[in-house]
């Protein structure tokens, strides 16, 4: 068995005139969660579909659980679970019938498939709805059942294409905790997401994808370091030039001032007592503050800096902090 459960090298894929993948590389060690992050149309879904044997690459090579996805798709399929972006279950069957069918078609014994189905229905709190036909399911219930279906055989490798898109916060957290449990048991998960907090919360490593290739890779912490650390943001009651002089010794770079002269922003090294010193210095300079805070870098900052596009903010968290135009692309060495 290879050390990496999933390995892809130089995958390319073209649909008509669209180059969906342009030399895509990826590696995921066993028992880890790899987050694949990128804007819409970056190639995330295409990459996952190739790894799950649903699409063939034009060039490149990929191994899943040690098997080549092109030459030995049957062996790959014995070892994976897959949840697509759109529900891939039978609308006319009940939840329970769907899970059993998936189990039986995965060559589980009938009794095992039954037991496993009940277990998963409980895990995803779908037992009450299990006897109902899928047409009556809400979007969130469908996503959960879809995920349950991919877990029927306890596959060592799991591909999830935006598994929590459209889920309410409670369902999202339930899915997250199930995924964490799976990884504790040694399952390798590749998950695509547009939600930065999801990648931040779950992923051991993240690859950032844009225009069909990986433009950055690392742990969430490493990626956040790309943005160059924390920043101080403050709002003054009225414009005051003395504020700049007072701040200069405390910050790590130039202080940016907004057009109305009231909002200030500067890179800082986040240390204990920094905020107290800032407030005291401004107070001594006679500056009246409306608010001030030190912001830790978020993956949103990383994302914007690397791709030049704003990420999608998840529904339940407030939209990202002040929009900042992207500067030059910064490559992370792998």
């Amino acid at each position, binding site marked *: *068995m290879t050390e990496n459960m999933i390995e892809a090298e130089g995958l390319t894929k073209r649909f008509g005139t669209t180059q969906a993948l342009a030399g895509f590389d990826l590696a995921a060690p066993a*028992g880890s969660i790899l987050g694949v992050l990128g804007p819409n149309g970056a190639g995330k879904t295409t990459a996952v*579909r190739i790894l*799950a*044997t*649903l*699409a*063939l690459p034009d060039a490149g090579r990929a191994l899943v*659980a*040690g098997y080549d996805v092109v030459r030995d798709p*049957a*062996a790959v*399929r*014995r*070892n*994976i*679970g*897959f949840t*697509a972006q*759109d*529900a*891939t*279950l*039978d*609308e*006319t*069957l009940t939840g329970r*019938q769907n899970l059993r*069918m*998936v189990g*039986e*078609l*995965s*060559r589980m014994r009938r009794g095992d498939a039954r037991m496993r189905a009940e277990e998963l229905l409980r895990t995803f709190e779908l037992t009450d709805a299990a006897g109902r*036909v899928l047409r009556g399911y809400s979007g969130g219930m469908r996503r959960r059942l879809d995920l349950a*279906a991919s877990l029927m055989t*306890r*596959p*060592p490798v799991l591909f999830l294409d935006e598994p929590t898109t459209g889920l309410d916060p409670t369902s999202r957290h339930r899915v997250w905790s199930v995924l964490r449990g799976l990884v*504790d*048991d*040694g*399952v390798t998960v590749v998950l695509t997401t547009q939600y930065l907090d999801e990648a931040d919360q779950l992923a051991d490593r993240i690859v950032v994808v844009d225009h069909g290739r990986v433009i950055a890779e690392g742990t969430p912490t490493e990626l956040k370091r790309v943005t160059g650390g924390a920043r101080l943001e403050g709002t003054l009651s009225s414009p005051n030039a003395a504020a700049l002089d007072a701040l200069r010794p405390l910050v790590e770079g130039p202080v940016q001032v907004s057009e109305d002269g009231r909002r200030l922003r500067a890179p800082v090294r986040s240390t204990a007592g920094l905020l107290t010193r800032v407030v005291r210095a401004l107070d001594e300079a006679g500056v009246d503050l409306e608010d001030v805070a030190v912001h830790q870098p978020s993956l949103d900052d990383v994302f914007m800096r690397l791709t030049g596009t704003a990420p999608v903010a998840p529904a339940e968290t407030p939209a990202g902090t002040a929009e900042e135009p992207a500067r030059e692309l910064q490559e992370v060495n792998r």
Partner: protein
Amino acid sequence: MIDALPMVHVAGPPMPARVAGALRDVYVVTRRNLIHITREPMQLGDVTIQPVLFTLLFVYVFGSGIPVPGGTYASFAIAGLLLLNLTTSSMGTAVGLTVDLGTGIIDRFRTLPMWPAAVLVGRSITDLLAATLCTLIVAGSGLVVGWRPQTGIGQLIAGFGVALFFAYALSWLAGCVGLWAKGVETAQSFGFLVLFPISFVSNALVPTRGMPDWLRTIADWNPVSAVTAACRELWGNPNPSALSSAWSMQHPVWTALAWSIAILVVCLPLASMLYRRRTTG
């Protein structure tokens, strides 16, 4: 929790287990299709209500105006009505596959370690079961309007067998159309543009001797005519086509079997090729 580490499944199962597994996949897919039917029983309208309706319409409306040498119109028409119903209802295969391909369920199937062709074979078995039901209903309504088989039980069953074998072959042809069609409408229009003409330009509902020569030649070599004539011969019903000099009408049972086998030989590989092409991104 080392012992809980998920196992990578190394080798595929040995050959006998693989065949058994494939058969089980077909069973599971067929059962799924049958569950669909129980949820929407009107799917079976073309093999339950339609045969009764056609029998009554043709026997009482057309039958009164079409003289059949050597017997009543009812005893002549039931074999033809069976073929008319079986042929037109094979359109259901095309529609069923097109519908399946339009939903995400095929993606799910394709990531499972199942036999990929089970989707197609399961569909064809489902349609064979529907065709069997259709046959029973045609026979039942035939008995009511005065159709009587004149031979033994063995030959009666042989006639049904020839007809169902043809229906099975036809479901693979319809399957190819369903796999090729982009939408349900295309699949349905196949029924009207191909299956209806095939059913009617034949000896199924009228004796062919009144047709112009060129049309009669087409009718004589039409597989629907061969299967119909085979049933009439096997059931001892009036079979005016026996007077035709065409080889196909002199040997209708062999012609019917040959047509069915030929359709299967072409359509089985074609369907699996179309399926692969359709589902490989």
